């Protein structure tokens, strides 16, 4: 279709959708209302099980099966990124030696900041994972912090060091093992909020490292060769 035809089809569809959406949402309960029956049941369940963070109680206990699916989606995507972006290996070998990874010159201040921030961020990540059942945060949020933290080494201008501390096979296996542990916990012993937080933290951390590693590989290879 021409861009014009495409836009006309969309505008007709979108206008109809807007009308349906407005007509429908008028019938929703008032914003900010007090009627949340399911939510209230989960709150009392969480209190009864002594999990102060109700969200963690839902994600890892009352509706743990949802989170099981979510963790598997994460694993599948990380595996998929590895598979889809795998072509780069052969290409890398073709032109090996010609590449120098990463920004060659980095201000010392930035380098020091990167190295200093790394341990602090790692500790923060572990803290967020460990206290997931008590305070806001948990395996997922902490896992992302942990997974991204490693890339501060890149900020310090040290791509070879970054490549050394994240061997892809290890993280691939680590992620899979964590996901497997979560499957077991969710189906056999839902309610182990702390253990499940740890499994999720490990899995998310590994997945973030894997995916970012693959994208870094693609992007940096390109930058230095062009």
């Amino acid at each position, binding site marked *: 279709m021409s861009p014009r035809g*495409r836009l006309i089809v969309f505008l007709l569809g*979108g206008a109809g959708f807007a009308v349906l959406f407005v007509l429908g949402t008028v019938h929703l309960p008032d914003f900010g209302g007090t009627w949340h029956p399911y939510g209230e049941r989960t709150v009392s369940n969480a209190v009864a099980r002594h999990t102060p963070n109700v969200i963690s109680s839902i994600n890892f206990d009352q509706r743990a099966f*949802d989170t099981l699916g979510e963790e598997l989606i994460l694993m*599948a995507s990380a*595996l998929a990124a590895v598979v889809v972006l795998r072509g780069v290996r052969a290409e890398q070998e073709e032109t090996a030696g010609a590449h120098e990874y990463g920004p060659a010159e980095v201000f010392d201040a930035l380098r020091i900041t990167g190295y200093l921030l790394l341990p602090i961020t790692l500790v923060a990540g572990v803290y967020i994972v460990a206290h997931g059942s008590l305070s806001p945060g948990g395996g997922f949020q902490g896992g992302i912090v942990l997974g991204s933290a490693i890339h501060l080494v890149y900020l310090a201008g040290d791509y070879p060091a970054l490549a050394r501390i994240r061997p892809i096979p290890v993280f691939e296996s680590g992620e899979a093992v964590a996901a497997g542990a979560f*499957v077991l916990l969710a189906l056999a012993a839902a309610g182990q909020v702390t253990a499940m937080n740890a499994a999720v933290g490990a899995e998310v951390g590994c997945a973030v490292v894997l995916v970012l590693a693959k994208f870094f590989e693609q992007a940096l290879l390109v930058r230095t060769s062009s």
Partner: protein
Amino acid sequence: MILQIAVGLPFLVATLLAGTGRWLPRVAVDALATLTVAVLIVLLSLVLASGGTTVWLGGWREGVGIPLVASPLTLGLTLTIAVVALAALIVSWRYFAEVQAIFHALMLLFTGAMCAFVLTEDLFDAFVFFELMSVVAYALTGYKSEEPDTVHGALNFGIVNSLGAYFTLSGIALVYARTGQLGFAAIGKSLREDDALVTLAFALICTGFLVKAAAVPFHFWLADAHAVAPTPVCMLFSGVMVELGVFGVLRTYVLSFSRAIPAADVRTALLVFGSAAALLGGVMCVLQRHIKRLLAYSTISHVGLLLVGVGLLDEAALSGAATYFLGHVGVKAALFSGAGLLLNRYETVDEHDLHGRGRSMPVTGTIFLLGGLGLAGLPPYGTWAGKAVMEEAGGVWLTALAVVASALTAGAVLRVWLRVFLGAGPSRSDSGDHEEAETRFKLSRLPWTMVAPGVVLVLGGLLLGLLPGHVIGRAVASYAHLEGPVPTPWTPAGVLSGLLAVAFAFGVAVLGLRGYAPRVALLHRLHSGHIGDYVAWLMAGVTVFGLLLIAR
């Protein structure tokens, strides 16, 4: 407990394969994956033998936790999924020369996700596993990422289906706002009146499922994805994944919305979308020369027919639709495995390039002939039995629609059979557009593992019509709480319409060999591969579906 083990097993082995697969020999990976699916089949059969069960995960009761419901219907569906997965895994033993354990891990995740989607009876949980199924499907489609068409097809698949799923999630949010529930049954209990909000929520939830079911105009992604996905994966896509979209619509309506929205409104909407898919899929199918793409359009057409059968919302038609689904699984999975054998042998699936070259492959030829007859609906195929029952429930117009759709799709497949395996018609090989074979080296003889699954599946589809229909009928009736006698397909009208479709199919095949083709350049231009077009049509489709629900 058996049910939890059955649900968890494929996931657990998938994580094991993903974690340790790179150090395992190929034989062990194949064996482990195949064994897992075989055990899954045994476990599901055990649950079925015990009469089904409902399990509340984590011990949380109604209103809080998530139930897994194993009824005869859901168990039948999951068993079908597992059997097709087993066939696909056996085909891929020798099919891929070089494949990592990640492929097997993804296949197991895919199987497990489809089973969990069927078994869970919680709306949001169903969405999560629907997404898992989709994400794994994108990955499997893009698996051979060195091919340009492959990644393009996978991307179109991913964007359209993800967008559909987000519409579904919005609908779930609206239902939650109204009822304060997420379980299918719990929602059904509290949704009683029909207003604009309920209609909007239903339309939104159905969008994601209809995109998966490739109802027109949501169907564009399907041909793009099927033409490029590895052939064993196509067996699962066409055989069961697409049909799960129809199941999603059925379940959402029957369990949650049937007391709020009158059946007549939903019927109109589903019949319009299903008929459009049945006809458009049939016409596009005849126009193709790329065999996998041709089979993809035939899937659109047949799933459209299935949607019509389900959309009648009548017990007889529903049991017919279930039989039709089973028959179609056998036939279509076998045809895709046959296409895989051609691709393996000749590194192309272009009908004209293959002219007469299939003479040395008698078994593959038989698969295509039996598959073509199955798509046409020759008695006693399962496709025929299901169609005959649906026709009786739907009346004359449905008979006409079914005959046209099956004649077009079966005609195209029979044309391929005549041209490739008998060398009929003039030879005009001009494309020269070779695909890279999915198998790295050419096998001198086709190993039995690549041939046998197709033969078994197509024979299963053939003999299905002899099975007493009341088994399937009862499973459907207990699920949908519908009453009524279970009809038989063996009526004069049913047999006649089956034979008529076969005769027309041969007519279409012969006309195709002589070079007649409908002049529909416009349809070609609509299927542009342009993601903007696809999404614009999706938006329009949502609105039309919503309006059809309101129109009385």
